[in-house]
């Protein structure tokens, strides 16, 4: 610890910490904008480029950025001098002078860090107005809108894309006033190896990056008398949706969500968790088969479309090792448009399947060519958690006051194993619950595999199943996935099963979730909500879900059957690594 004097007050600061951190200890908030940190994921974005956080340091000729200047012994810092105020206001003035200020019609209205900063600093006029940089808007994909006219060049998206996810498509391009973040040659995202994980959207402080909003399409479908519109909701949605209605983070809102969806007009309110149980049946069988035969190991999970696209581009030589099982979203769509459509006597083209997902890559996934039967998409419209909240607000539904509802049958029943898909480690745990019983023929005494849970980037566990020591690994965040994949490619890693989720922490931190602005404690609470829901379930293993059993009896036969393969399994394609 070293003493640092800030505004005349002495504070003992940790060596290597920043002026910003030291000031916080004294209860002084220095405004920041480009700075972004998430210790739990090792993210420290200290670019020091927006210059909002500048402070006066005695003995230095220029103002210093508090977010990235390390404290030094006996340093004298002033955060509130006239010189600092003047600089800070001017910098904000400049940023606003180049910002569209269309707050009322912006996705990020009331969620925008620049808006909050302007409010906090109380700037009342722009002293330096002028031309605004004009950039074309990239609308040419299913998932993400990039409107760089709103960009403040904090480069968080670049950091998320390159350092956290190692997808590596975003970087600074062009110079001076026209400098912006874009893929090489300013290609649209659709022409790159972008996986649409949406982590860039999740960290963007302003409205430059957004999901492609499909709420209007949902309204149109719901009001189309010729259509039967059903909805599925992913496990992580219920753990975060409440945040959009000022419920405290970690409040599980499954029942209210179901009621709200019914009020919106969906004819069937179903659960992606049902399909998650189905995924476990298929993927679990594949795991058991491959472990028993001891070949083509490890098996990698394939629920996450961002991860699937990632390995298609970056590890095309390994496309034979992920499970061929479709993701729960697509399994749901396939079953809905075949088994369910037939059951209710509706033609697949007149059945509209809407997904509510914590994810932006799911929008892309649903549009993939292979996920359609006779030209009809299995999943028609995908909206994010944030979009669902918008619809609920627009419909005037007082969410917090809603009573709990229950999912419809038959595609609404699920086990606890399916719920935990929403957290990193959950898919693997769910698979283990089923695989262990399949392999040993004995009921599990302890269904909680604590060893595979957590938010950390890479976890390993060895689980005894009968005589077998099953070696498993879990990675969340594609940068961590890359480490595992490279170890496998180099023949240095020997696992039976690996779960990978593209977003750090899993789906609960997906690119379509309510914004957390770097507050990891919110993720921890969402995670807890998911596991609490699992504990509270009567059925906690996928193969014990009675509706799943009936589905196999009535329609699919058994896991891995020909019908199952046709409807529930898929192929992967090598894609260019550019």
């Amino acid at each position, binding site marked *: 610890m070293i003493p640092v004097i800030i505004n005349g007050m002495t504070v003992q600061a940790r060596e290597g910490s920043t002026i910003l951190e030291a000031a916080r200890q004294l209860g002084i908030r220095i405004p920041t904008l480009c700075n972004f940190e998430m210790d739990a994921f090792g993210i420290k974005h200290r*670019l*020091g*480029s*927006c*210059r*909002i956080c*500048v402070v006066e340091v005695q003995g230095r000729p*220029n*103002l210093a*950025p508090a977010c*990235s*200047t*390390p404290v030094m012994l006996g340093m004298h810092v002033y955060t509130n001098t006239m*010189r600092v105020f*003047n*600089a800070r206001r*001017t*910098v904000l003035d*400049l*940023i606003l*002078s*180049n910002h569209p200020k269309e707050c009322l019609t912006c996705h990020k209205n009331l969620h925008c860090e620049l808006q909050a900063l302007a409010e906090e600093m109380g700037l009342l006029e722009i*002293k*330096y107005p*002028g*031309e605004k940089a004009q950039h074309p808007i990239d609308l040419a994909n299913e998932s993400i809108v990039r409107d760089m006219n709103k960009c*403040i*060049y904090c480069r968080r998206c670049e950091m998320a894309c390159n350092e956290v996810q190692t997808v590596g498509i975003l*970087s*600074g391009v*062009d*110079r*001076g*006033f*026209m*400098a*912006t973040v874009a893929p090489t040659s300013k290609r649209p995202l659709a022409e790159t190896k972008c996986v649409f994980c949406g982590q860039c959207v999740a960290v963007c402080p302003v409205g430059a990056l957004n999901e492609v909003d499909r709420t209007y399409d949902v309204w149109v479908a719901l009001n189309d008398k010729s259509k039967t519109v059903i909805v599925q909701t992913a496990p992580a949605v219920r753990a975060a949706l409440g945040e959009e209605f000022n419920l405290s983070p970690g409040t599980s809102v499954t029942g209210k969500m179901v009621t709200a969806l019914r009020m919106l007009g969906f004819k069937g309110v179903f659960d992606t968790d049902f399909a998650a149980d189905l995924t476990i049946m298929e993927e679990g069988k594949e795991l058991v088969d491959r472990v028993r035969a001891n070949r083509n190991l490890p098996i990698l999970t394939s629920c996450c479309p961002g991860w699937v696209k990632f390995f298609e581009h970056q590890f095309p030589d390994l496309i034979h090792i992920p499970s061929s099982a479709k993701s729960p979203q697509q399994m749901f769509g396939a079953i809905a448009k075949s088994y369910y459509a037939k059951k209710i006597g509706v033609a697949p083209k007149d059945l509209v399947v809407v997904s509510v997902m914590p994810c932006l890559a799911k929008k892309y996934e649903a549009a993939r060519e292979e996920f359609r039967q006779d030209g009809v998409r299995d999943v028609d419209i995908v909206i994010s958690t944030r979009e669902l909240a918008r619809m609920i607000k627009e419909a005037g539904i007082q969410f917090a006051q809603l009573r709990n509802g229950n999912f419809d049958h038959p595609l609404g029943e699920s086990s606890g194993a399916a719920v935990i898909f929403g957290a990193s480690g959950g898919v693997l745990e769910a698979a283990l619950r089923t695989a262990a019983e399949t392999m040993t023929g004995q009921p599990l005494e302890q269904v909680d595999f604590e060893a595979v849970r957590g938010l950390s980037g890479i976890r390993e566990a060895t689980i005894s199943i009968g005589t077998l020591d099953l070696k498993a690994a879990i990675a969340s965040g594609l940068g961590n996935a890359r480490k595992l994949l490279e170890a496998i490619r180099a023949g240095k890693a020997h696992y039976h099963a690996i779960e990978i989720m593209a977003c750090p922490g899993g789906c609960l931190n997906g690119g379509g979730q309510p914004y957390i602005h770097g507050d990891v404690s919110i993720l921890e609470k969402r995670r807890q909500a998911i596991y609490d829901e699992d504990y509270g379930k009567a059925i906690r293993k996928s193969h014990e879900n009675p509706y799943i059993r009936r589905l196999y009896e009535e329609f699919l036969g058994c896991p891995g059957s020909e019908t199952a393969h046709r409807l529930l399994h898929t192929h992967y394609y090598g894609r260019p690594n550019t």
Partner: protein
Amino acid sequence: MIRTWEDLKRETERIREARRRGPPVQVLVSMGTCGIAAGTQPVLEAIRKTVADRGLDRQVEVLQTGCMGLCHSEPSIEVLDRVNGRDYLYGLVTPQQVPALLDIGAEPSKGLLSVPRSWYYPDDDEQSNGRPQARLVLRNSGRIDPERLDDYLEKDGYQALAKAVVSMKPEEVVELVAQSGLRGRGGGGFPTGKKWSFAATVEAPEKFVVCNADEGDPGAFMDRAVLEGDPHSVLEGMAIAGYAIGSRRGVIYIRAEYPLAVRRLFTAIDQARKAGLLGRDLFGSGFGFDIEIKYGAGAFVCGEETALIHSVEGYRGEPTLKPPFPAVAGLWKRPTVVNNVETLANVPTIVRRGAAWFRGFGTPGSPGTKVFALAGKINKVGLVEVPMGMTLRQIVFDIGQGIKGGRRFKAVQTGGPSGGCIREDELDTPIDYDTLRNLGSMMGSGGMIVMDEDDCMVNVAKFFLEFTLDESCGKCTPCRIGNKRLFEMLSRTCEGKAEPDILQRLETLSLVIKDTSLCGLGQTSPNPVLATMRKFADEYCEHVHDRRCRSGVCTALVRYAINERCVGCTLCARNCPVSCIAGERKKRHVIDEAKCIRCGVCFQKCKFHAIDRV
């Protein structure tokens, strides 16, 4: 293969002996980029042909050299006549003049332009002896063939490196450079010895010496001249730096727009490797050093050392915060010394001649010389090297021979887009790093642009800001947006659209940009604005309040009118590009202001002072 210092000495002696026995007359042909562009190639061919035709092979040796610094007289040729003990320097040579030029022994014929020797003093003993220029850095530039290692060795080349690695400890070399007082010639003026000592004291498995050859100031070409004219001196300087700090690898970061310099560097590196002057175990000392070349893509900001390092690593050339300083964590996170070309070219001489000798030039605070690229409205545009402490008046009026066309001197801009302007009343200040800073300018890398009464100082500030605007990496807000706003305000000022409070806002914003920008480029970018505002405040006031531009550069603020002195000669009407002047012969003409584009041609053409610029 040179394996020891003794080998080198023997080799140097052999070359000198061969020279003594060789042709007694040398014809030096300036073949730098600028010379070639001015048409030296056909002159060189004519010389070779004439020499061959006249059978002068044994009497005359033709050398292609680097830049002699005589931009105003390219193509320039020097004839060193050992037989008659005479040297002639010719400028603006054409191939037709070559036969006369090669009449060795005869007095120069009248058709040839003989360049005044006072302007240009190539001097083997490197002493100024009261002459205006002192050639330390440019000692070989224009004097040797840069593509021949022998020429460099003849001029004591690689003796300093041999001396350092054989007879000195690394810390002694650092100390010697520190003693010499050499300061970074790239612009900042940071003491080179100090920079080296930082890197030398850090323990690391690998260190780097990076030569910054990303010269990018508008109108600056000092480093190009050194690289094209004397590449080995830079290589030798780098190797000495490597020995001093404990580095075995050097990187030259050179802009790809310097193809000739690149080619000559490659040639030089290849020659040095083959001769054993680069590579493993130099002079039997156990110390090894090698150099590679990396291209820059022409970004001005890559002259900033952290941006340069990122560029070498293959990343976007953007500055990052210091600390960590490159001396601690630079290229590939290893301790790195980044020195400018001119700094490194000084090193061999310092090692060879000693710190005290070097301190014999310049001022106590800024020893040595500085190379300046003299440009703008000056009679003798060119490259000059002068001891620090010389006054600007001497440079502009003695060496540069004053202002073109007898116009009045107005200001000189030093330090390029990061510097400021210096007014006539400040011309007698002896210039070094510190005095220039006190004048609100800076040394910069050595660009020196002279302006006369026809230059509008608001427009000058706008010009430099436009450059910065293009060259800013855009990383930090004040530089990315602030400079754009400054530029817009200056544009409005020049267009007569300035708001009444614009001057105060220009100053406030300039000061904030200086105070908050991340790197040196941003921190100095408003300097041209602040300097011109301070020193030519009246011009700014005229633009803002009177909507007037006294130099007539800001066309939106200028009106032309014909007064009663008009005799009706019709010259103006005939020259007007938009035919907006009407009038009968011998009668007073009138300008149609609605059609006038304010080009000023009529104003320049009129012989009767009959056109007013208001």
